[in-house]
């Protein structure tokens, strides 16, 4: 009787939340070939536009690590008819915010502007010129290359950055995802490298345009076309898209450092976007180390032993298999103890999977928190841009809750056995000597 009541209460609460299926996403292909994703929302006088190109760091040519990021960084530092100061001043005059970056797969540029025509139209016009006519002025190139080198050198003194770089290199020893910009590779870049990279990767066919906010569909169609019409028509990046990575052999790397705390990372290439095991893996990971204070790693490493302030596990799905990773920081002397506890927790989870109570808690949170993932235009933009760029189903958000609900404990165990294999797990410990 008691369990039936509980179950029904759960059904009711979940049903109530499933009813919120997320925003309606309009999708079309612009005449330029750019794929467009649009969420119309007039509740605030704000418009957000993001353009993602298949031009992330994985597309760095083998001897030019750092090229993709530097190219993205220089887009708004000089365009046809405007230098970097004019661009920034005009955007500020309009109250518009231009931002972006490059991750492993994507180079992104996004604009947030007020939606009233007197602000929106000039702001979008600057955005268009940033996308379509960057000039990479020589003196700006020299300066930004030097600043990037300085930042990379500084990062190489910090334990968290040293650990991160060693970790990616160990996971992807021969794959583009493992390539790292260094002071030497960036120092050797030339201005023509940026112009070439831009011409071949920033094409309309390699672009995904995501528009969220106070705009009508017809205006959105016009906007997507305008933004992408004058992009380069180069060969495109598909020819050099990264192949699936090979799994590394298990290894453990120790790097000395004078820091008070050791930084521990362990993981392996594990999951790509669109993989059918995605849902069992994120449900399982919630119990292992993704669910904040309620996860096993947090309980064993932090709550029970006081070993760390932060300890987590997670999947970072990419176009090809992105990492599963566990990370923590602990004072030098107890690094080995913390490593042992972490490995025991992982081994225990891989052997038995989540308990019934853990599985239920994971589903309750992942389904229940769904509205929180979409309660601002900014969050909607981020979610829809990922759906668009990776070609996830348009009803991904609509079916999110039921895909979580469907996961059984045996699915979690089986999916972890397929994706998280200890014989391929690399470990990096910095400052654990």
């Amino acid at each position, binding site marked *: 009787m008691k369990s039936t009541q509980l179950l029904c209460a759960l059904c009711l609460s979940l049903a109530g939340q499933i009813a919120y299926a997320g925003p309606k996403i309009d999708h079309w292909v612009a005449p330029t070939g750019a794929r467009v994703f649009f969420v119309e929302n007039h509740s605030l006088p704000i418009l957000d536009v993001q353009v993602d190109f298949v031009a992330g760091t994985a597309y760095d040519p083998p001897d030019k690590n750092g090229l993709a990021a530097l190219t993205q960084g220089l887009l708004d530092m000089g365009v046809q008819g405007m230098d970097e100061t004019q661009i920034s001043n005009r955007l500020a005059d309009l109250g518009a915010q231009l931002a972006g970056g490059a991750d492993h797969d994507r180079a992104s540029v996004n604009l947030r502007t007020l939606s009233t025509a007197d602000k929106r139209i000039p702001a979008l016009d600057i955005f268009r010129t940033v996308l379509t006519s960057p000039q990479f002025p020589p003196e700006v190139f020299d300066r930004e290359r030097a600043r990037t080198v300085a930042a990379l050198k500084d990062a190489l003194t910090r334990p968290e950055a040293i650990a991160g770089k060693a970790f990616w290199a160990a996971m992807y020893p021969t794959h583009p995802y493992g390539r790292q910009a260094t002071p030497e590779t960036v120092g050797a870049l030339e201005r023509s490298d940026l112009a070439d990279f831009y011409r071949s990767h920033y094409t309309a066919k390699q672009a995904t345009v995501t528009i969220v906010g106070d705009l009508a569909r017809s205006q959105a169609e016009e906007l997507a076309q305008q933004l992408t019409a004058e992009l380069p028509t180069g060969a495109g990046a598909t020819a050099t898209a990264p192949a699936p990575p090979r799994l590394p052999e298990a290894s*453990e790397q120790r790097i000395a450092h004078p820091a008070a705390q050791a930084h521990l990372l362990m993981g392996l290439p594990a999951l790509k976007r669109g993989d059918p095991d995605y849902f069992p893996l994120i449900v399982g990971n919630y119990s292992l180390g993704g669910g904040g*204070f309620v996860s096993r790693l947090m309980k064993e490493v932090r709550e029970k032993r006081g070993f760390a302030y932060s300890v987590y596990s997670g999947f970072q799905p990419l176009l090809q298999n992105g990492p599963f990773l566990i990370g923590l920081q602990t004072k030098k002397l107890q690094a080995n103890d913390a490593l042992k506890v972490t490995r025991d927790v992982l081994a225990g989870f891989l052997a038995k999977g989540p308990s019934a109570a853990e599985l239920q808690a994971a589903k309750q949170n992942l389904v229940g928190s769904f509205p929180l993932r979409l309660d601002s235009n900014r969050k909607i933009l981020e979610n829809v841009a990922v759906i668009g760029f990776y070609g996830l189903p348009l009803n991904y958000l609509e079916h999110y809750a039921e895909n979580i609900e469907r996961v059984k404990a045996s699915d979690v165990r089986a999916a972890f056995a397929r994706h998280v294999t200890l014989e391929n797990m690399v470990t990096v410990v910095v400052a654990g000597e």
Partner: protein
Amino acid sequence: MPIRYARLISLLLVLAAPTGVLANPFEQQLANGLRIIVKEDHRAPTAAHMVWYHAGSMDETNGTTGVAHLLEHMMFKGTPSTGPGEFSRRVAAAGGRDNAFTNKDYTAYFQQVPKQKLALMMQLEADRMRHLNLDSKEFAQEIKVVMEERRLRTDDQPQSLLYEQALAVALQAHPYRVPVIGWMNDLESMNVGDARTWYTRWYVPNNALVVIVGDVDHQEVFKLAEKYYGALAPRALPARKPQLEPQQTGIRRLTVKAPAELPVVLMAYKVPVLRDVEKDVDPYALEMLAAILDGHEAARFSKSLIREQRLATSAGAGYDSTARGPGLFFLQASPSEGRTRAELEAGLRAEITRIVKEGVTTEELARAKAQLVASEIYKLDSMFAQAMEIGQLESVGISYRLNTRMIEKLQDVNADQVRTIAQKYFGDDQLTVAELDPQPLPQTPRAHTAQPRH
């Protein structure tokens, strides 16, 4: 004031008060002194719930620095009706996210939840407001976690160390000189009794503010507040000593050595903060100065120091006009390769001198104002940001209702006022200069790789 901003301001007023609900946000005070502010925002079926305690690190005394933050951690360790860790488990089960943060002025707790779960959050927060267990075994584990947090965020972060040391030199009497996380030795000698004393002293309804922003009905929220928080007994608060900082009468300098590549120059000038929203002028002018120096990619510091002179690889300015304690205006920069810290300091000073001598342009000022107005509208995209704004203003003693007035006052700042404050506050006698002297990493044998032991 150019008219195009006036139009945006009125737009802002309309947005701040959704159709037909001119009183939004709504406010009520319970008989026990607890205040509740509710801002209805019906754009998504969620709510942000925050409890702000008017006690932060500035209310600590020497020997127990860090206790405000330690108590924040202990607030998740259970009450007679909610076991250790149970608080976060119940928030998670409700589909929510929760956390907390401690600052110099306040300690705040929050949950973001589907709106149906708001009542449960209020029940849980009310419970731990007066019924915390404070068990010595839980304390013994948690103090270790806090020491790890200090190592992570301060001891191994050269720039955090620099900032910590700079504050301790710039201020000698006011408790803002003490780091929020506490000195390591104070953490090492802290006991559960210190936490209990702190909790008993400050965690009472008459020292707290509840802020709720979300898809809720304010009448219903007030009823829930009465139901859950209404029964908690108030208690008189201890007197707060002003601990005013004595006048600084000469430049102060310090150096911090830590493993790094890039040097850092950090300059802190003593300046006023907002005490009277209507009468004060200088804090608004200082906010505008910060925006003119560092408000966008082509603002003065970036344009002149990084781009034109190539003297700095990064440069920034920072000022917060709202605080319970004294104000500081920070300039911070790292030199380009081949340039010295002394050259960089001279470069930063030259930018201030240029403002004293030549003033700022009307274009620069208009630009800073346009950004300010837009950012106020962008803030409406986040329920959490709106709740933060209300709580932060209230915790320094400024009514959230004065926020629009503050925006208007910022719009009123003119170029003469900016020049005047640059002249008035940026002399050497009120200055502290802190330098990060980067140390090379010790030469170590190459990394070795071994097969792991599972």
